[in-house]
């Protein structure tokens, strides 16, 4: 592949077609057929074994059928966009695929691919990648080029925002409950606080104690919460992986997420305790000690 | 059992299993309460006075011994039957009042009547009468938080009398009150007794105990001595 000025590139050509698996045999019948790889799901569904010879064709009537040997099995790269699709697929050499799919009446179809993937040597710079895509588009106006790093329209950015919105709502709801619990706890300590105020302990000292206690409890609670989430993640992943027969990871508690959770939980916990205690401390001392 | 007898306790023992070893709170106690009796039980803290009161009041069940209330063996009754006795035949007054904080004085007194199925008109009349009895008609709509300690205890006494019990049990009723207020409560108990309700009082307050017709001392779970002229037995 000729490189564009300013960019070093390597590429791959991919073509995707719907082929038909017509038959499989477990012995070579003629000269060595070409090798293919099949997905784990296809291997299981068609009861294939490595070494089996299969016949692939362009349609169910056997158009341009060719025989191939199952040389290996692969686990399809999990595709979040297609995780619910049963991955019945195989990988062929491009030449072999085109021999089956090319329409003899259309010479151009023997040289047609679906996608050309280009790996740039300076791929870490998104601006540079986009610039390459634009330059390529300008040179090949009838071919659509885009940078795969353009994240604005990515489905997963949307899903990420969706999950973040749900998380925010959950935090708001649980903050309300936490405040309610803290109010109850503060009420339980009404007399104790009243006695402390009676003997001259300042509001500031009492609030400091409340904040420190709240901080310790909030840190412990947040840590336990992260541990519970880490435990739940394996259940969630196992459930969805079994449900959709995929190796896709649906949930991952990364260090960043754990820290973010703690960073939200601790201030909320401390603040809830402090607010509840402050509503108590605002009252007069006599009101606190009175039954 | 005679017609005048309300509660008869025979050889009551109550043992509490504790992690450090069982504790015998009441040891082989016997007593008999008749209509018109007014008994004060005194003794050092932890001697089992409150436990004895709970046993007499069908709040707790003895480890051994029997309690007979108006001829019925309390040990043979179901929990709901015991509850019914507490509701309609016994009144409780607690040291810490235990009024429901979200109900007014009127509503606190009305509550046991409502539970006993007294019709609304009857409840109104009885509640009004009881508030007058304890001289708190002007505080009928006040919440407990708006009442003084003495006023709260008077409401508690009125509540205990709501269903015209045969027996009033009071556990340190002046324990949280000052002397003067305690005196008012003591006077109230005198009136209650004069009006025909039998009273068992557990108290440290010597002045209050002195107003009772009978006095018993309790030590280490056992009843000691007794006022022989009342016919009380204490072992």
């Amino acid at each position, binding site marked *: 592949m000729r490189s564009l000025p300013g960019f070093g590139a390597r590429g791959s050509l991919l073509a995707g077609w719907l082929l038909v698996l017509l038959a499989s045999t477990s012995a070579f019948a003629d000269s060595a057929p070409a090798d293919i790889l099949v997905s784990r799901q296809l291997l299981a569904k068609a009861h294939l074994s490595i070494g089996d010879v299969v016949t692939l064709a362009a349609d169910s009537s056997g158009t341009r059928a060719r025989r191939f040997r199952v040389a290996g099995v692969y686990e399809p790269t999990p595709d979040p966009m297609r995780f619910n699709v049963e991955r019945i697929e195989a990988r062929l050499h491009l030449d072999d695929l085109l021999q089956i799919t090319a329409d003899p009446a259309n010479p151009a179809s023997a040289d047609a691919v679906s996608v050309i993937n280009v790996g740039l040597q300076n791929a870490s710079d998104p601006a540079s990648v986009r610039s390459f895509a634009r330059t390529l588009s300008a040179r090949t106006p009838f071919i659509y080029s885009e940078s795969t790093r353009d994240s604005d329209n990515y489905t997963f950015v949307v899903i990420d925002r969706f999950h973040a919105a749900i998380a925010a709502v959950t935090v708001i*709801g649980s903050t309300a409950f936490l*405040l309610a*619990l803290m109010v109850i706890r503060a009420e339980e300590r009404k007399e104790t606080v009243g006695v402390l105020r009676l003997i001259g302990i300042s509001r500031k000292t009492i609030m400091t104690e409340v904040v420190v206690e709240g901080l310790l409890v909030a840190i412990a609670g947040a840590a336990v919460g992260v541990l519970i989430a880490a435990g739940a993640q394996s259940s969630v992943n196992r459930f969805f992986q079994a449900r959709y027969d995929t190796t896709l990871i649906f949930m991952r508690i990364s260090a960043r997420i754990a820290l973010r959770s703690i960073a939200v939980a601790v201030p909320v916990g401390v603040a809830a305790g402090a607010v509840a205690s402050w509503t108590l401390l605002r009252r007069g001392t006599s009101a606190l000690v009175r039954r | 059992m005679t017609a005048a007898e309300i509660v008869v306790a025979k050889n009551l023992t109550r043992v509490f299993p504790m992690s450090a070893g069982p504790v015998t709170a009441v040891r082989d106690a016997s007593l008999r309460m008749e209509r018109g009796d007014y008994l004060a039980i005194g003794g050092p803290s932890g001697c089992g006075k409150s436990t004895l009161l709970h046993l007499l009041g069908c709040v707790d069940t003895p480890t051994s011994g029997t309690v007979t209330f108006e001829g019925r063996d309390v040990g043979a009754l179901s929990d709901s039957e015991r*509850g019914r006795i507490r509701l309609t035949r016994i009144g409780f007054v607690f040291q810490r009042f235990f009024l429901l904080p979200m109900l007014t004085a009127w509503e606190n007194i009305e509550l046991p009547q409502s539970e006993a199925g007294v019709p609304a008109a009857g409840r109104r009349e009885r509640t009004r009468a009881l508030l007058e009895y304890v001289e708190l008609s002007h505080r009928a709509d006040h919440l407990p938080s708006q009442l003084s300690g003495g006023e709260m205890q008077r409401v508690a006494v009125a509540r205990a009398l709501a269903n015209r019990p045969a027996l009033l049990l009071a556990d340190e009723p002046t324990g949280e009150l000052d002397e003067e207020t305690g005196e008012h409560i003591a006077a109230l108990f005198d009136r209650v007794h004069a009006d025909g309700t039998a009273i068992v009082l557990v108290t440290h307050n010597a002045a209050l105990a002195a107003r009772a017709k009978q006095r018993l001392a309790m030590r280490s779970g056992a009843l000691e001595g007794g006022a022989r002229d009342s016919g009380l037995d204490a072992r």
Partner: protein
Amino acid sequence: MTAFALAWRTARRYRARAVLAVVGVAVIGALNFDMLLLSHGLMLSFADLINSTGYDIRIAGGTGLALSRTPLDNSTALMNEIAALPQVEAVAAMRTADAVIGKGRGAQQAELIGSSDAGGLGIWKPVSGADLSAPPNGAVAPAVISRPLSDLLHLTPGAVFTLRARIGDSLSAMPAVSLRVAGVAEFPFESQQAAIVATTMEGFRAAHGGVLNDQATFMFARSRRSAGPDAAAAAINRLRPDVHAFSNEQVIANFGRNAFTYFRQISIVLSTTTGVFSFLLVATLLTVSVNQRLGEVAALRALGIARRRIAATLLWESALLVGIGGLFALPLGELLALVLDRILRGMPGLPSGLHFFVFEPRSLALHAAVLAATALVAAMYPVWLAVKLPIAQTLRQEVVS
């Protein structure tokens, strides 16, 4: 005083915690309600979308997938055969191609649709102007364009623009053709910002240099009322076993099985999670509240108040918190659904007429059922605590503490 009245008084007495608990239930309940809306929302929305068009049968070629875009060969003959069926009232075909409007740096990519039916059989909804039935102005074919394209290029009905089709598997450049904007429309089956140009088949052919094979990308039909879509689809399948005719109902069912199952799954997971969450929160709150009032409860039991009344009071307390919170959860949930729907509709390529959160009475009934179950189950442990507490021991502890 009834148990409900006691519970109400308790909530009023402890106003702060009651209000906070209601707020908590309302927020979590709103999320739960939204997850119920999400569980069927896409299906309902897609069904609304597809049933709002003027057709009730979709004809597909190739593999027989209802939503596939495998071209249908000899489409003219196929259309005529289908139109001749007594069960079929109307047939329309469409085909699509990529196109470019303008040139150079200002060139705008667009999707070109050729339609045999002037109104597109209801695929697009007119906003202004007319449909494709307007007579061509000389050699200039009419076009209906999407609103985003109209806004982008400031094209209004009557404007003329040039367009060049792009053929994916050909190295030839197509000639630029002029089209006249007959109308502006919403294309609910296309993404929100999609640039669409729909024209007649003649216009589509002209954009391809006058040479076009007899293929259709989509073919739709409308059944006669007397026959119904199922009978008409069956008749088409009998007539032409090489194609696959689906009624809208079958297409919707297919969509429901295959499309966006992630959201159905996530709605189940989140509904369950929020349900458990609500239960835990309400149960914790009630338990702590009961623990704080054990002395009161013991005194009531000592006074002879029956266990069932105490249990009923606590159940009513739970019902009040969850019930009032659940009521507030509805408008809050609708508001949240608008926000979440807006977020999710930002997904690339999503039909603009599709919504994720769609109200149905079933969701309301489920929401109420979940709340009722939450209130009941959350109260169980606190009720158990209250009715089982040892009266004498509790009274003693209250005095000592």
